[in-house]
């Protein structure tokens, strides 16, 4: 049997020796922090134009994560490439010949990549939060306020889970291009659009990104967001179910299919 620590070390070498790792993770961080900061600055400048209801439900924590809508796409790309390039490069056959226990191979790879995504995700959410609060001026909140720390850590968890979900999907589809072609439009367009369409949004609430994003919200109905039938942890739980389903699907595919 393959030694798990050895396979983990091997997968870590794989991840750190390709350039896509650094550019996708750096983009996830920079895009999220920069876009969040820009929106926080804009919000401060236009705060007085908000309606009284909007002012009452203003969520300074959530607004400082608004760049994640774009930044999460880099996380999707990271997750897809970690798994997908094994297939597109033909490396999968070399890898499985070295580690024929397919579950050990797949989950070691995913564990290493997910840990890295989580670390970068947490760094992203803390940076976004502190920079955003600094730019919000008198409308800011602090880490010590109720539920704020949960939301900031939740932002990191969200980024990590998005990457993990993408890895599961790429393992199921066995192709980087196909996975990106589905996931990027889904997260960037379909999920966003459906969540604004009556009736469809009842379903969209249960999409992994919509449900998972609730963890980053401190004021439940902030910025005209929909009231959800679940709380922040409930939302993260729904996202976890999606992630688990994608990983189980990916495992079944790699276990059954010819490499």
């Amino acid at each position, binding site marked *: 049997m*393959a030694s798990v620590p*050895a396979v983990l070390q091997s997968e870590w*070498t794989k991840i750190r020796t390709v350039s896509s790792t650094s550019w996708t993770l750096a983009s996830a961080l920079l895009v999220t922090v920069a876009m969040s900061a820009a929106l926080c600055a804009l919000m401060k400048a236009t705060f007085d134009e908000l309606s009284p209801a909007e002012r009452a439900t203003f969520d300074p924590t959530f607004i400082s994560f608004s760049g994640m809508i774009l930044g999460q796409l880099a996380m999707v790309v990271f997750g897809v490439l970690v798994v997908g390039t*094994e297939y597109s*490069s*033909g*490396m999968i*056959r070399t890898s499985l*010949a070295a580690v024929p226990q397919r579950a050990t191979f797949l989950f070691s790879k995913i564990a290493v990549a997910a840990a890295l995504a989580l670390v970068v995700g947490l760094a992203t959410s803390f940076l976004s939060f502190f920079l955003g609060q600094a730019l919000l001026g008198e409308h800011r909140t602090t880490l010590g306020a109720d539920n704020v720390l949960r939301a900031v850590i939740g932002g990191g968890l969200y980024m990590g889970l998005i990457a993990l979900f993408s890895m599961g999907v790429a393992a199921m589809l066995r192709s980087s291009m196909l996975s990106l072609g589905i996931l990027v439009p889904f997260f960037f367009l379909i999920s966003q659009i459906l969540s604004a369409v009556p009736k469809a949004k009842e379903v969209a609430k249960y999409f992994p990104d919509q449900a998972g994003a609730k963890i980053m919200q401190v004021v439940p109905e902030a910025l005209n967001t929909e009231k959800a039938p679940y709380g922040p942890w409930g939302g993260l739980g729904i996202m976890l179910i999606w992630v688990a389903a994608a990983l189980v699907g990916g495992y079944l595919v790699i276990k059954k299919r010819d*490499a």
Partner: protein
Amino acid sequence: MIELEGLTKRFGTKVAVDHLSFQVRPGVVTGFLGPNGAGKSTTMRMMLDLDNPTSGRVRIDGKHYRDLEEPLKYIGALLEAKAMHGGRSAYNNLLCLAQSNRIPERRVAEVLDTVGLTSVARKKSKGFSLGMAQRLGIASALLGDPEILMFDEPVNGLDPEGIHWIRNLMKALAAEGRTIFVSSHLMSEMALTADHLIVIGQGRLLADTSMADFIQRNSRSFVRLRSPQQERLRDLLHEHGYQAVESGNGTLEIDGATTESLGELAARHQLVLHELSAQRASLEEAFMQMTAGAVEYHAHGTDVHPGTDSGPRWGDQAPRWGTTSQGK
């Protein structure tokens, strides 16, 4: 030692590998020969547990591949040249493989030196030529210093220098007592490297024989004669018990005779000869003849269609060459 037992692979209704049973023994180079599409690569992938057999099994030193502890230390394989991540350097591609099987890192530099890639060790492998990629693939096969090595079409796309290098490498590895299993669709290549030969066509075993035996059985030697007095020559040969076969252009082919005896015979009877030559049919011809019924893609449409009547033709003859007859 690799043992295949009734190994079968179906893709839908198409049978790619059909009840293959043979053994690959240590200390020799075993050639795995078959036309394109005969099922060689599929067989090799099943040997490495990359493809799941429909039925049958493969054992490596008595074990299933999946039960090998750190398999790169038992068996190294070159399946296709570009089975590496192009964005990673040659060194790092090998390093992550070494780590997964707890092979010491110094082996990476050693095998890169063996295959002559030390100078490009830190270059990204996507810039490699086919020959360099092939060498990198061979380096990965050698990484765990395994007793068994498998190479799928290793000379494909290589220049003469590279081909020469691979041939010598395989012979040297076999001389160290290792099991070498190498596939090719070129008989001429096998004749130069292999000691033992396994021939398949349409997924079925056609021959399992030593190279020397194959050459002896299949390289027909005969004498070619051409004379303006062909009728007389023919009668004369018949009188002396030679079987002459007309082969067009007024030439006669005689099996089992020497040029000396025929030349002297003609001289004694004062026959004019325009040609007297010793001929030898090439192994390539023998191979093509053997697999003629089992070639999947014919160049022209008049040939027999695979699967209609081609099977029995060679199925009947297969045991002639083989020590193991096919499974059905």
